[in-house]
């Protein structure tokens, strides 16, 4: 599913994560990860992000994850919501 429009889910509050998805040229998905715990969990956050994007069949998207110390279930939920919003028919 191609990203059709810019969409966000989550927040910048402590223990949450803000996911922003915007359409991008081509088929690829480009992920940018920022986190207050990047050293400890950066790789895990990236692999979860890529996994959720792949499971949803996301394409042509730039995904920005701004993590404020969210639990993995929160991250997954935010990613799914943002992908749904970004790929939904206008």
């Amino acid at each position, binding site marked *: 599913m191609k990203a059709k429009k810019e969409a966000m889910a989550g927040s910048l509050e*402590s223990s949450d994560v803000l996911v922003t998805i915007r359409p991008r040229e081509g088929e690829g998905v480009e992920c940018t990860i920022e986190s207050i715990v990047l050293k400890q969990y950066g790789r895990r956050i990236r692999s979860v992000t890529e996994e959720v994007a792949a499971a949803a069949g996301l394409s042509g998207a730039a995904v920005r994850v701004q993590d404020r110390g969210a639990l993995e279930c929160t991250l997954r939920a935010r990613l799914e919501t943002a992908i749904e919003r970004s790929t939904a028919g206008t």
Partner: protein
Amino acid sequence: MSAAYGDRDVREIRDDPDRDEYRTLLTSRGLSVPEGSDLVLGLYEGERLAAAGSLVGNVIQGLATARETEGEGSAAVLVTALLKAAADRGLGRVAVFTKPPEAAVFEGLGFRRLAVAERPATGLGAALLEWGSPGIEDWKADLARRAEGRPRPSGVVVVNCNPFTRGHQALLEWAASESSWVHVLVVEEDRSLFPFPVRLDLVRKGTTHIRNLDVHPGGPYVISSATFPTYFTRPRPGSPDDAAAELHAALDLEVFRTHVAPVLGAVERFVGTEPYCPTTSTYNRLMREILPAPRPDSPALEIRELPRVERDGAAVSASRVRDLIRAGRFEEIRTLVPETTWDWLRSPGAAPVLERIRASDTRH
């Protein structure tokens, strides 16, 4: 719009008495209500206003949290809501203009710091940050591509050209004779009487005879509502906004010095003396102060100032051209502008612009 966050609730502030409450909150933090807000959001805890902020175009302004709720993450809630509102409006990039001590709060929320300016004389300071994309790094990469292969070191001229006159032309010719390459950045923000595409086109047409010169759109980082909001409102000298104008001018020059000039390999900035407009004259004074100072973060620039070209005892300026249009003394414009601008002014495409100028009394 309304979004619940536990017992907290973000909603739009539209009318009194909510507006009054917002004003009181800002005053208590030494801020004033921003002009021309597109949206004001408040974070309420029960009926109490815990934090509020405005979106003016794509700039977050007038953001404050109540002292009692500081440190409880209310700024994060409110900033998130403002970013989402901006995204709903199709704005992928949001800037924030704040006091230097607050910059760290925004950096913690994922904003990038672009520049900080402090004016010891007035005690004012400002920091400019941005969030989202395309951001300044994208813009710099694009500018670097445009300047690829051009000789360095180069000279830069920033112009508005509202419209392009013989004064501008003389300045650019002089810059080109003094520098191995000249990059002309045309202010892109579309708030002048002559629309940006016309201003850019007239600069290009009026400089085709200059071989060592490129004309670029100024983009959002060269005299824009994010770097220099008061440039477009032109406050009266001595008014409180005049001190703000000085601060904004300093901020714009900081962005220029640390981000724009290095990309172009610029070591000189060329400017015409400003006899009429106090805002531009302040800008030129700060330019002489900020750009040549040796500093570790960025190379210094030399300021080269050309006295305004005169015709019949008065300086050739774009504002004089606009005055003559307003006064209906069209023929007198001919000696003030290059042939290319003159031709455009007499073309059918110019009619609506001329009509707008006649109907306006703005300085700009």
